């Protein structure tokens, strides 16, 4: 009798955990926000868009100094030039996008039901190049990153509004894939993204403090002082994956696009504030 009751309970366990795994994105996001706010009770929600500067006073001081003469300004200007440039047939990149310039960045990443996959801003720009019969830009090219810097700048102050439509099962599946990626340990060093940016958030790895994942996507592309250049979110993903000694996925691979989709959703409600400046 006692045994069969225990067996029944045990058999319920997988059902319960399974149910927890498919809890809706909005439940996930609320729990995510609550976690970071309880870890840093003195930090206002909106501040998390500033990444590590939200929680580190010293770094924040240095950052504000850097922002006096923004090191990403050149990229923004170059991006604007490329954006306005008229092509031989008179078309412009802007022609591919229906929205006003400031509304383009917030429209991505989005799930494209027709293609059955997540489309990011970088992919959308290259799609546009293709429809205009122009060669696509490599995803680490200065041209492409500059344009995303310009569009990020134009969208400053707009809220993150990542959409997962309830009637689009593919969108939820892509989100779930991104979530699984985020929480899975990988590489020889055996770290999940969440091991550092959730569980150990704010602690030091040698001299560097681990930034909160809430707000991770709002400020890209980002000027990195140590590299002396502006890098994309996917280049940062690649660096993190390499740091845990796993083989990085390609920039704009399905894995990284799904991860971006998940992380962007987690940052819903924060403001876009790219491009950013980091060590």
């Amino acid at each position, binding site marked *: 009798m006692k045994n069969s009751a225990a067996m029944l309970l045990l058999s319920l366990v997988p059902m319960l955990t399974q149910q927890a795994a498919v809890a809706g994105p909005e439940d996930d996001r609320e729990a995510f926000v609550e976690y970071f706010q309880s870890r840093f009770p003195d930090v206002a929600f909106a501040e998390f868009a500033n990444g590590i500067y939200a929680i580190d006073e010293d770094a924040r001081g240095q950052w504000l100094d850097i922002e006096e003469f923004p090191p990403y300004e050149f990229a923004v200007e170059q991006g604007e030039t490329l954006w306005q440039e008229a092509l031989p047939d008179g078309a412009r990149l802007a022609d591919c996008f229906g929205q006003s310039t400031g509304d383009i960045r917030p429209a991505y990443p989005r799930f494209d039901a027709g293609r059955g996959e997540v489309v990011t801003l970088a992919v959308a720009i290259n799609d546009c190049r293709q429809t205009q019969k122009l060669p696509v830009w490599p995803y680490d090219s200065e041209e492409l990153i500059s344009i995303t810097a310009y569009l990020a700048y134009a969208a400053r102050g707009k809220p993150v509004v990542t959409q997962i439509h309830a009637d689009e099962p593919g969108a939820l599946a892509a989100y779930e894939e991104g979530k699984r990626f985020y929480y899975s340990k990988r590489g020889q*060093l055996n770290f999940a993204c969440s091991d550092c940016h959730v569980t150990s958030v704010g602690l030091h790895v040698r001299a560097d403090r681990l930034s909160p994942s809430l707000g991770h996507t709002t400020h890209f592309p980002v000027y990195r002082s140590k590299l002396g250049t502006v890098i994309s979110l996917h280049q940062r993903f690649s660096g993190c994956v390499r740091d845990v000694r796993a083989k990085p996925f390609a920039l704009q691979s399905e894995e990284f696009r799904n991860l971006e989709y998940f992380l962007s959703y987690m940052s819903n409600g924060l403001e876009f504030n790219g491009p950013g400046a980091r060590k």
Partner: protein
Amino acid sequence: MHGKNLKFFMPLCDFRRLAAGIAAMSVLALAAAHATTDDGIAAGKSLAMERSKGNCLACHSIEDGELPGTIGPPLVAMKLRFPERAALKQQICDATVRNVDSRMPPFCRHGILTEDEVELIVDYLYTL
């Protein structure tokens, strides 16, 4: 059952001698396996510090190590915290044995360090 077996074997050997002999052998074997030398401790220290090896400072503070991380506990009083050498070695080799959720890389299980390298690191850690 057991008693019967014991009685059967009893006349065949002197248990006290046997026990003493085994104890002596294992002491010798242990001494041979972990002959801690100054060179060994120095080698263990450099393995602990090297970024491509132990890289302990990434997460733990260690005596004179500069800019230590704060993710793991400071490496102090190691003999007190790990009286058993095997427990300390296991913690480095695969910390998930003791704590499933450990964020410490499983150094032996993932081939980041060899068991011999971990022995040297343990020698060094016991000086802290």
